[in-house]
């Protein structure tokens, strides 16, 4: 309770009007975004508008049966999350109630009027102090650590408390409520802190990102990379593979912590995540992926106001881990549902609508949210990052709608999903012509150093071929492929190889689901190798039909599915070499 100032507590007012998730109370002296308890059942709500005597409240639970005249109590606190050991592997609803605890308390269906703290207050954690008596500590500094899963949970001095000299610090097993450290200023520190979700946690400095977030997805890492601390949007019509892409990122991105927000999405999909993640292994640590993951699941039929809050709950948890010095990636699926929750609440408030009924503050809310991403120097001087990847679900797949447009104005990476591609089962169905990454320049040096000095050149080459193919396809549509000049017939074939071998990736294949940078480089290089041979042979007089139909080339796609692909790749390259040479000698 260090951060949320206590205002006058225990004020009671009276309900005046109930219309869906928005209720009006009178005789209550609340502040904006105060948490209030509504009705005899004490449903949780939040103040979203104050008008004369009337206080307008959005309620996080179903309001059926609530009557005018029932009491409303102001807690005087802002909507805050509990931060401390126990976050990892948790599954929360939009207002940080652990879903497993809710099952125990109220059965298989979500009932209302049940509160549950975000963290287990009874569980004891082994606390190892990292400072000693007499050390000076300030907000954001690490005072100790807890081995939470395979991740070390660093215990921080909360921002905004008064720092000072450590008077006493304990070692041993404690709950998150017990005081582990006392400062000479009188401040008592526990392993838990609270933070209001709508306020970004403070940092020393924001920096420009220079390292890519490696995701193991070829089209992302290879062509349109996102930086650690960067922002990306994946818009796409339904069925184009947004959720699969988001889940692939949650599984394989090389962040240390993953926060996954299922915001207004399908219940069965969350179940899939819940059953799959504990079984999957982190390719780096070999531990279950779940151990580095925090899940927030507010499905489409759970209360709409809690959906609005879920995104803030998620990003606050992400920032907390960033403050420990971790690289965190946050997936929000889908930000459109979040925007729709805003629209629904706004229309119940009878606010003047902006474009397509969305509130006029849509753009501001979106940019505030994405701006909470970034590579930062934390208060304690470490580097940490939050990368945000937001799915967008444009109605009818039309990218000109407000949520997509306002998102694109903010994010640096755009992965455009394409229903046409998914219909022909080209996955990931990311359109290579419309997508872009604005991080290419800042990541250039990293690829030079860590992958190969050739990589950036190869990438530009591949993009050129794909661009050229698009132009040629227009001609083919008019006159047929036989009418193309010979060299361009080859270009079409090479582009097809880039698409089918490099860009297509099978998320359900045990090997192909994750492809590291060196394999990506080898694959692209093999395609370029064939292209060089092919053009040379064509100039030497071999017909494109012969070059295209060489046998060994058909084996190339198979290396995607082979773990130790190198010997096979070498064999294929050698036989491609010799086949083309034979063709040339007979030409």
């Amino acid at each position: 309770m260090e951060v949320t100032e206590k205002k006058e507590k225990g004020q009671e007012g009276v309900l005046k009007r109930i219309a869906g998730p928005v209720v009006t109370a009178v005789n209550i002296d609340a502040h904006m975004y105060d948490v209030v308890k509504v009705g005899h059942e004490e449903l949780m709500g939040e103040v979203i508008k104050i008008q004369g005597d009337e206080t307008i409240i959005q309620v996080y639970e179903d309001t059926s049966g609530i009557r005018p005249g029932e009491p409303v109590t102001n807690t005087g606190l802002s909507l805050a999350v509990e931060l401390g050991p126990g976050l990892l592997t948790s599954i929360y609803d939009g207002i940080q109630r652990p879903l497993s605890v809710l099952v125990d308390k109220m059965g298989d269906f979500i009932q209302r009027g049940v509160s549950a703290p975000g963290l287990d207050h009874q569980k004891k954690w082994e606390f190892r102090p990292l400072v000693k008596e007499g050390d000076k500590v300030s907000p954001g500094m690490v005072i100790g650590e807890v081995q939470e899963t395979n991740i070390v949970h660093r215990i921080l001095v909360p921002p905004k408390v008064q720092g000072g000299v450590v008077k006493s610090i304990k070692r041993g097993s404690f709950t998150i409520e017990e005081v582990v450290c006392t400062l000479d200023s009188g401040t008592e520190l526990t392993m838990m802190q609270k933070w209001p979700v709508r306020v970004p946690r403070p940092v020393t400095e924001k920096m420009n990102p220079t390292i890519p977030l490696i995701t193991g997805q070829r089209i992302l890492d290879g062509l349109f990379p996102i930086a650690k601390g960067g922002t990306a949007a994946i818009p796409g019509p339904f069925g184009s593979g947004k959720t699969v892409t988001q889940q692939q990122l949650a599984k394989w991105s090389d962040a240390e912590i993953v926060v996954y927000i299922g915001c207004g999405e399908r219940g069965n999909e969350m179940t899939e995540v819940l059953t799959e993640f504990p079984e999957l292994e982190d390719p780096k640590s070999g531990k279950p992926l779940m151990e580095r993951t925090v899940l927030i699941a507010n499905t489409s039929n759970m209360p709409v106001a809690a959906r609005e809050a879920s995104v803030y709950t998620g990003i606050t948890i992400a920032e907390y881990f960033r403050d420990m010095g971790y690289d965190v990636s946050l997936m929000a699926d889908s930000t459109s549902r979040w925007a729709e929750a805003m629209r629904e609440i706004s229309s119940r408030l009878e606010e003047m609508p902006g474009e397509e009924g969305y509130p006029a503050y849509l753009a501001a809310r979106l940019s505030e949210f994405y701006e909470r991403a970034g590579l930062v120097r934390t208060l304690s001087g470490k580097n940490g990052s939050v990368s945000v990847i937001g799915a967008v679900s444009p109605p009818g797949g039309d990218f000109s709608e407000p949520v997509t447009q306002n998102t694109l104005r903010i994010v640096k990476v755009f992965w455009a999903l394409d229903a046409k591609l998914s219909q022909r089962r080209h996955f990931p169905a990311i359109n290579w012509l419309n997508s872009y990454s604005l991080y290419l320049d800042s990541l250039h040096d990293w690829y030079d150093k860590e992958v190969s000095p050739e990589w950036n050149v190869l990438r530009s080459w591949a993009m050129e071929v794909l661009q050229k193919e698009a132009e040629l396809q227009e001609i083919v549509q008019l006159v047929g492929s036989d009418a193309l000049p010979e060299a361009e017939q080859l270009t079409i074939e090479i582009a097809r190889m880039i698409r089918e071998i490099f860009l297509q990736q099978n998320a359900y294949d045990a090997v192909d689901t994750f492809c590291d940078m060196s394999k990506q480089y080898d694959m692209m290089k093999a395609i370029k190798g064939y292209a060089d041979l092919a053009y040379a042979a064509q100039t030497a007089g071999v017909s494109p039909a012969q070059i295209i139909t060489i046998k060994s080339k058909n084996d190339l796609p198979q290396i995607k599915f082979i773990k130790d692909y190198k010997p096979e790749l070498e064999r294929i390259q050698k036989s491609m070499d010799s086949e083309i040479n034979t063709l040339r000698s007979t030409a």
Partner: protein
Amino acid sequence: MKEYRTISKIAGPLVFVEKTEPVGYNELVNIALWDGTIKRGQVLDTSDSLVVVQVFETTAGIGKDSGVRFLGETIKMPVGKEMLGRILSGGGKPIDGGPEIVPEKRLDITGAAINPYARASPEEFIQTGISTIDGTNTLVRGQKLPIFSGAGLPHNNIALQIARQSKVLGSKESFAVVFAAMGITKEEANHFMQDFERTGALERAVVFLNLADDPAVERIITPRLALTTAEYLAFDLDMHVLVILTDMTNYCEALRQIGAAREEVPGRRGYPGYMYTDLAGIYERAGIIKGKKGSITQFPILTMPGDDITHPIPDLTGYITEGQIVVSRELHRKGIYPPINVLPSLSRLMNLGIGKEHTREDHKKVSDQLYAAYAEGNDLRGLVAIVGKDALSERDRMFLEFADLFENRFVRQGYDEDRTIFETLDGGWNLLATLPVEQLVRIDRDLINKYHPKFRQGAKAQE
């Protein structure tokens, strides 16, 4: 219970009542007319000065002299074992001449959301006997898979065929069917009823009928009554329930009607901004719960206005459901039944229910290959229209022919033809065998050697 005669305004399906005692939100309301008829409604907005009531039937006959009673509870549905075999109105009253339902329980019709943590992952393959569903858009128990259709297309027959043929491999138990009709014509309803009777399905069915001439607003509660019944059958009585909701387009129209009457700020095309949340409240009531034997599988049917898949109704539905089966006018015109266009169709849960443990190891790859080849052939049709068949390369011609074969052999089947999944997959292989083996890039060598007709026969000959 106090009766108020303080109606101040009546607009469309809405009745405004003044000076009441505190009334609960969503509470059930009875309005008594001068001749004694009772109309039912629900509280949409409540404050100390004014209560807005949405009436489920027509407001004809309601006047300032009508008496309003607030029943002090939200709408409940009486449910019991004897519901199987019964026909009820869209408001839940028996209309088959039989006795009233003896309730074993009275359940809130809004239904609470299933806690995602309590859900079990759906993974049991349902064989519908239709190749385009089983083979390429596989349905699993606990899934919600809508049929996107258009006016005049045979979606009802497809739904009936699915209801009739659906089974889980290796299990003898059949599905209980909960059928909710919203605003369909009497003729359509008869078609369903006759088929249910013909096949004996009626004994295991609960039917809710809100027909085209029944009050539109009643449609708002019909699917909720049906799903409440389904939840009772599935989670209290351990049954596997198939819910057919038709036509969701009429439901959404009713939703728009109420929104307009309340003078709400409309969203896209006049539909209310909360339509996504509202539809989710219906569609999300499908699934399986850990530790319970039963399941709810949903088949909502909707007709896309103007065959437009980007219209808000199919659009929002597609974002909530786990895929969609798209019925195509073009295939229907070609005389192909069932005219399911696999290209825009999708089953999101397919991968959970197929493969070695559920169907056969080659299922996924065969399906992907069929899709890719058909998509390619279909694209070429556009090209042929411009440049003519002769300008195509030989490879292209093969794919073009493949597309025709696919429609005629794989898509086309009889109304009573019940194909096993193995027949479907082998049929797929036979089609793929018309293409050169090196074009089958989506299938690994091992599977080709094992299942491709050419090699399979070779293998047999060797034996």
